[in-house]
């Protein structure tokens, strides 16, 4: 079924919307969540929570790309879930967050008034400035939380190439954020 038809079902408050979403995106959503949580149980729950959240947000929202829309929801849910877990159970999102924190200086002092919207815009600008391949690698790692080996398989790049690419992108992002006065 086409995305538009599924969205129409959500808008019509038809329960078939969930069934069709599960058929089309269930596995993909589960794998996104699993990359971030490293837990089958958490992933299953996140998938169900995603359907619920999508049900509640539509009809207000009418996404053009349903897959990407649902992915954003499940990512946010999975990251939240990992944050609630104990510090020992770090994996997926925890590891990715830690990796992202490498671009932040150790003596960094948080300004309470950091504008989340400005941060989001700066990040979107940074992502836009990357070429397609680098963008795919960045998003696979920091949005989907995929491990390096999976990224290598999906992009056809070598392990060291991916690691170097990510390192350089983190450096570039840090520089961009400094220039924007956000770091």
């Amino acid at each position: 079924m086409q995305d538009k038809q599924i969205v129409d079902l959500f808008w019509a408050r038809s329960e078939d919307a969930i069934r069709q979403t599960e058929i089309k995106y269930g596995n993909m959503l589960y794998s996104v969540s699993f990359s971030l949580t490293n837990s089958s149980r958490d992933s299953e729950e996140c998938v169900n929570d995603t359907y619920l959240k999508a049900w509640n947000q539509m009809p207000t929202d009418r996404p053009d790309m349903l897959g990407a829309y649902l992915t954003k929801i499940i990512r946010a849910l999975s990251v939240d879930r990992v944050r609630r877990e104990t510090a020992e159970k770090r994996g997926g999102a925890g590891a990715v967050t830690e990796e992202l924190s490498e671009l932040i200086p150790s003596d960094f002092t948080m300004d309470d008034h950091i504008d989340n919207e400005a941060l989001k815009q700066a990040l979107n600008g940074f992502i836009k400035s990357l070429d397609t391949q680098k963008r795919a690698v960045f998003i696979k790692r920091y949005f989907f939380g995929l491990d390096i080996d999976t990224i290598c398989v999906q992009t056809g790049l070598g392990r060291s190439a991916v690691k170097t690419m990510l390192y350089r992108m983190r450096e570039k992002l840090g520089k961009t954020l400094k220039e924007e006065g956000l770091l």
Partner: protein
Amino acid sequence: MTDKEKYAQKLMDAVGEIDEKYIYEAQNYTPKKRMPGYIAAIIAAAASMFLIISLSFPLMLSLLMRRGNNATDFESVTPIYQMEHSMSKADVKTYATLPKMTGAALIWRTADSGYSYVSISEAKAERLIESIGKGSEKPVQDDGARIWIKTDNGEYVSPHLKLTPGNVDCAVFEYSPEIAISDEAAKMIANIIEERK
């Protein structure tokens, strides 16, 4: 939680808010297929062959045409485009004193290094060039005299030169006396100069 950790979380959240089109793009990203090595090698070899042939073709064609025009094994006519390139500095100065030539001409340098020219018709220039190419192989004494025929399209042709690496590069003054000018050409040149007087 340290400020660094808090900021990392904010960053992580901001990553979660990126434009959906980039998420879609990354989800559907497929690497460009690399060309197999042997296909790249074949293409490189074909390109090299094409380059070699295209570069050498004009030279081969010109050599074949020249050979076809000559009765002897020697190349007795070498075209040059800038006479000054083949002259000594003193000669260039003398040559520069000549009035500007338009169209075909017969140019000569006498034994006392003076340059002269006479305008001739394009047909005459062509005939002269053809007849010069049929020179004999007798050794001749170099008396310092030189002759050039300028064609309508600005090409200079000189007898007494054979196709040696030096002469190909228009070294007119690396004069080879091995080929004497043909009687027919000598007669034509004499007539042209006589008419001028």
